[in-house]
């Protein structure tokens, strides 16, 4: 096989993969609706790992007795969609579905079940890491300690439920 051709093909492949990844994320930014999420304090030992901050949201743990849910138990690793609704300052979980209803125009955020127990659901939304410049994580960390966290996160959610962090506010 012509080596030059291989070089050109590989270059194109690499550019295509990189651009594809950027486009998929930019799509969320372009089309996503902004929701403001409340965070909860995390164990400081796990909180700041190197150059990124671990975020935990109020909607990371759901009580299935208090919100609408199709099931009372979900298998670990299962993909679900959480319907978000604005309540006062923050957006909060209103329902858990296994698919986004076609007719519903509301905001649904995609999540993966971490574990499910006693009608409680622990979820991962893929927005749990926030990369910060070296040393700057300490400010956010300070605001997430104690009983209540004052860190707020602005998140963009597209129609398919994909989410991306827009901004983190540490007051």
């Amino acid at each position, binding site marked *: *096989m012509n*080596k*030059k051709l*291989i*070089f050109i*093909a*590989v*270059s194109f*492949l*690499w*550019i295509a*993969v*990189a651009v594809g*990844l*950027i486009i998929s*994320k930019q799509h969320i930014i372009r089309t996503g609706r902004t929701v403001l999420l409340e965070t909860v304090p995390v164990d400081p030992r796990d909180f700041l790992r*190197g*150059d*990124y901050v671990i975020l935990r949201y109020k909607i990371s743990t759901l009580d299935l007795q208090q919100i609408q849910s199709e099931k009372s138990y979900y298998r*670990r*690793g299962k993909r679900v969609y959480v319907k978000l609704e604005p309540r006062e300052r923050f957006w909060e979980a209103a329902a858990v579905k296994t698919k986004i209803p076609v007719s519903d125009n509301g905001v649904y955020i995609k999540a*993966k079940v971490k574990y499910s127990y006693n009608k409680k659901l622990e979820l*991962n939304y*893929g*927005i*749990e*890491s*926030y*990369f*910060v*410049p*070296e040393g700057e994580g300490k400010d956010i960390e300070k605001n997430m300690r104690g009983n209540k966290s004052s860190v707020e996160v602005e998140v963009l959610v597209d129609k398919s439920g994909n989410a*991306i*962090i827009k901004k983190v506010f540490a007051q």
Partner: protein
Amino acid sequence: MILGIISSLLWWAVVIFIIVKLVSGGRRKHYSWLQRELSLWEEKNIINKEQGDAVLSLYKLKRVTARKKMDMVKVLTLIGVIFVGLGVIFFVGSNWQRIPSHARTTMLLAITIATLYAGYIFSYEKEGFVNLGKSLLLLASLFWGGTIALIGQIYNIPTSENWYIMLLWAFPIVPIAVLFKNNYVHILASILFVIWNFLYSSSNNIANYYYPIFIFLLMLPTAKNLISSRRINIIGLVSASLYCCFNKYEWLALLISAGLLACYLVQKEERVYLYTACLSFIFWDIAYFTVRQLQPNLYFLLPLGFMLYLTYKDNIEKNLVFCLAGLMIGINLALSSVSQMLNYPFNGLQFTIFQSLLGISIYSAGIVSRNRGYLFPVIYKIFGYLVTFICVYLLAFKALLGEWAGAVNNVYLFGSLILAGIIALVAVDIVRSGNFKNKSNRIELAALIVALIGSLILLLSPRTVLLNTITMNSVLVVFALSSIFLGVELKKPPIFTLGIVIFVLFIITRYIDVTWKLKEKSLFFIVGGLVILFLGTFLEKQRRKIIERMKSE
């Protein structure tokens, strides 16, 4: 309980494997020396090529080509490349904020493509820079990882999705590894795939079937001449199979095992495929047990039987170790399933006696193989001896005997009785067939019968702790003495030394056993130390004398 059984079985398999490997290790060292020296003798015209071939065929060895000497320039270029690559990745990791994120990505991607181009130019366009070209292609692959990591960082892709980053890093560098035949990149891609597999399974909590398919269909076939890369991929497959035991992925373990077996059947000279297939089938059996605890895995007999057939057909001595470990684990898991089905509790004492009887049975198989001239009698004997010795050693502790004697488990009880019956029949057959006449065979058979009787006493009277302790300690002494006598009789120093080691181990263990409870620990250590010093020196002197005498005779 299941985890306990699994870990104890794994422990057994690993211990036995390591010990047998050690036993065969010395011989291999001599063989590789011979292989190297033969080339030199041929070169110096001391022997001709035909004579060299004759020597090699005598020891069933292959001709080896002289290893290429390490090129210093190559090593330095490679180290330099790895340093620069790591530097760029750390640079990305440190979140350099002064440049806008997209400019950073574009810059890094441009550097990556430029390095790829330089790699191509030095490898294929300019003559005399092949090593530099190869290293630059590796550097481009490392930069590519940095680019993907940077994009992941810009969009805050969480750590739970690192598998996805790993995949985007690994897949696009495969063409470099395969089409440019770059072994460094092949190794890098292989390592990344191993990491991807584990991250994928742990993040998504599902079995990763794509991994073995991809490795079997692309990475292994293209790593034909790349030993390091092949090894990494095989280790990756076996560890993926081991991971299945703890995550109930029995089908994935089966797929990996079958794949490795197929690889062996295609490439018979690569024996490592057979060893790893055997190991992987054992992991499959364990995974099957964790999924269907009440259902004994009778299907396991099929691959095990086939492996055993291949071991004999292709004359692969070492694989018998894996087969025997598989047999032991398979029997134990099946008995555990039946016990759970019939609601019998786990009984540590009966479990250990059963293992001991299995060990004696395997040893007897070795004697029968030797008497009838079948293959591999020594492997059976070493394996059986080790298993029995470990069990007897454990059963010689009074504290354990008292602790382990719990509610009766009839499955293990009957299993043990059946084994004891088989051993007795084999012993009768050995006596009747006239192989009992020479002294060494008599010593061997006597030790076997003593071990059998000791196990039976424990099995039938588990509550008489004192009697059982004395019995098992006596069996241990018989083991030591029989090895010493057998070593002298057969003029085999290793067997003789083994007897001495067992004897010393017995003395030290019993000393600790009896005196550890004493409050005065200083006395315990001083007396113990003195005993070890004097006894050790005395025994070592005697041992050397006898071995010298053996050699001079």
